[in-house]
């Protein structure tokens, strides 16, 4: 088990190295690169640009720049934002809790929808409920999250008003009402639309996954054995089948983390939610490369870590899995 853990962690290193090299050279190969904005500014002279290049170390050969960047990265230093002249790390740390809140609440909502829907669909496959659920999951999987977000704003901010106050039913964006004292209720009110947008497609995907996982398990021999020795169908279904069918969900969720971050990026962009995705989008529009590299690297580290954790969790929960 320990050797396996060590091997997994050692294997993660080259993966992150490949990613960092690719990203770094890609960004630096972009013309103008970090100084594109300064070069377009007519008030900045050629001498000043040269000076900036020396200051930022951009006149050195690329491999040396990479080594320096990597060296700093390993010490937790992601460099400074070109636009805001602040440490990238500080900017990211400010945003992480907001993204975690959005993603965490959406994850819970997803579980609350996907678990019962998936289980009930598998309990009576091809029933009316199952057909309805299947149709809805196809709809949920096919709705682009950015369109759903716009639609929600259109419906609950523009069209439907609160009958008591005449104000919009839900806010169109942001995390809190400007000028109002910060309160939990206000935060929850701002969370509703982003969470609905983010969890919809996801719930569809997972209820479908759970359904097929359940149906696979129900065909196993040990289920037939359990029924043959006289256990009630309900007990076999919920105890024997469900506990095994839910396991692949863990691996699935970890492998799916990139698409989860992607969803959060769109939702944060549309609803002006001050999380990492919004930070990334703003940085991409302003060509703030240190911020871009920082966020991507952090996301990659989170994804790699989550995959390793999921592997172990799987082994912990399923005694049939052996590590070698």
């Amino acid at each position, binding site marked *: 088990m320990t050797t396996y853990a060590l091997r997994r962690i050692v294997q993660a290193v080259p993966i992150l190295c490949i990613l960092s090299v690719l990203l770094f050279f890609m960004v630096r190969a*972009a013309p103008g690169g970090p100084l594109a904005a300064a070069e377009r500014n007519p008030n900045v002279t050629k001498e000043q640009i040269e000076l900036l290049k020396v200051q930022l170390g951009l006149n050195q050969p690329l491999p040396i720049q990479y080594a320096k960047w990597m060296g700093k990265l390993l010490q937790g230093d992601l460099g400074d934002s070109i636009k805001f002249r602040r440490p990238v790390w500080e900017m990211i740390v400010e945003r992480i809790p907001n993204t975690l809140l959005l993603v965490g609440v959406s994850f819970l909502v997803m579980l609350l929808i996907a678990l019962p829907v998936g289980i009930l669909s598998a309990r009576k496959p091809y029933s009316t409920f199952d057909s309805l659920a299947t149709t809805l999951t196809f*709809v949920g999987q096919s709705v682009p999250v950015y369109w759903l977000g716009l639609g929600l704003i259109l419906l609950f901010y523009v069209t439907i008003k609160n009958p008591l106050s005449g104000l919009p039913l839900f806010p169109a964006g942001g995390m809190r009402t400007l000028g109002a004292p910060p309160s939990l209720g206000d935060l929850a009110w701002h969370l509703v639309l982003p969470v609905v947008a983010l969890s919809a497609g996801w719930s569809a995907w997972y209820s479908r996954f759970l359904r097929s996982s359940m149906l696979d398990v129900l065909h196993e021999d040990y289920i037939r054995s359990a029924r043959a020795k006289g256990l009630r169908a309900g007990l076999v279904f919920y105890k024997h089948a469900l506990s095994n069918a839910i396991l692949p969900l863990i691996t699935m969720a970890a492998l799916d983390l990139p698409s989860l971050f992607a969803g959060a990026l769109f939702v944060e962009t549309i609803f002006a939610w001050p999380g990492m995705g919004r930070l990334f989008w703003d940085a991409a529009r302003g060509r703030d490369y240190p911020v871009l590299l920082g966020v991507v690297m952090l996301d990659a580290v989170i994804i790699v870590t989550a995959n390793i954790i999921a592997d172990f969790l799987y082994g912990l929960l399923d005694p049939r899995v052996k590590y070698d």
Partner: protein
Amino acid sequence: MTDTPGNLLLELGQPARATEALARVILRRFLKHRLAVLALLALAVVVLFAAGASWSSYAPTQQEPANPFRAPSGTHWLGTDELGRDIFTRILYGGRVSLAVGLFSTLLTITLGVLIGALSGYYGGWLDNLLMRITDAFLTFPTIFVLILLGAALRDQPVQWLKNSVLTVIVIIAALSWMWPARLIRGLFLVLRERDFIAATRALGGNNARIIFLHILPNCIGPILVAGTLQMASAIITESGLSFLGFGVQPPTPTWGSILSTAQTHVFRAPWLAIYPGVMIFITVMAINYIGDGLRDAFDPYVIHAGK
């Protein structure tokens, strides 16, 4: 008929006629999936509309400065945008771009996936190890973030053909999607290469390339088609999303995503801008997903349609 083993095998296998019969069975099973057939028709309508875009009486970039934000009417069926451009026309032309990106990035993705998966699964050993580690690395990429980074970097390219043209968007989407098909194909190759008919082919003197492309690959056609349709749905969503964020195909070329992007800015003034391009993405993606479902059922020998 001579009695050489080669002829005997040919006679037993009847490759040409067997394939034909199988194709007929698959087609019949697909046609039984009513929703998939309906989806195929819906997709055909979308494709026809996109193909016939030039029949529209407007050009996609034709501006009418006097007519911005017109609501849908008889002259502008789906209204106009902030520059007075006809939305219906732009959606038709945008369909060309979105469908082309979806189709060609899928073809590229599947080609890459098949090559890498086949090499990995067939040869095994160090090559398999190397290719699968690279695949693992790509799988941990936060895809949309890397796509945005690439899109942002490409946008500043001085070389015209490198800018965010339809071609570069196709290539960057494929470059970040080949991993799932590669894994799938590798798995199929691992199983199929151990089968007796492969040993027989080898005994008859078939070389590796022949075995890979003529004997193993045709047996993977079902899973490849299913994976391809799902990939196409996801590629269309990715392209639209990337264009929506401003890092996909650049204006003035319309795509469904970039029309939605304008809509975001003007959603309060002109809600119809936000509705129709999204409807097109939704219908197309849903149709492709249903077609994928129909193909999966058609190729799966264990699926029995319950009275449908």
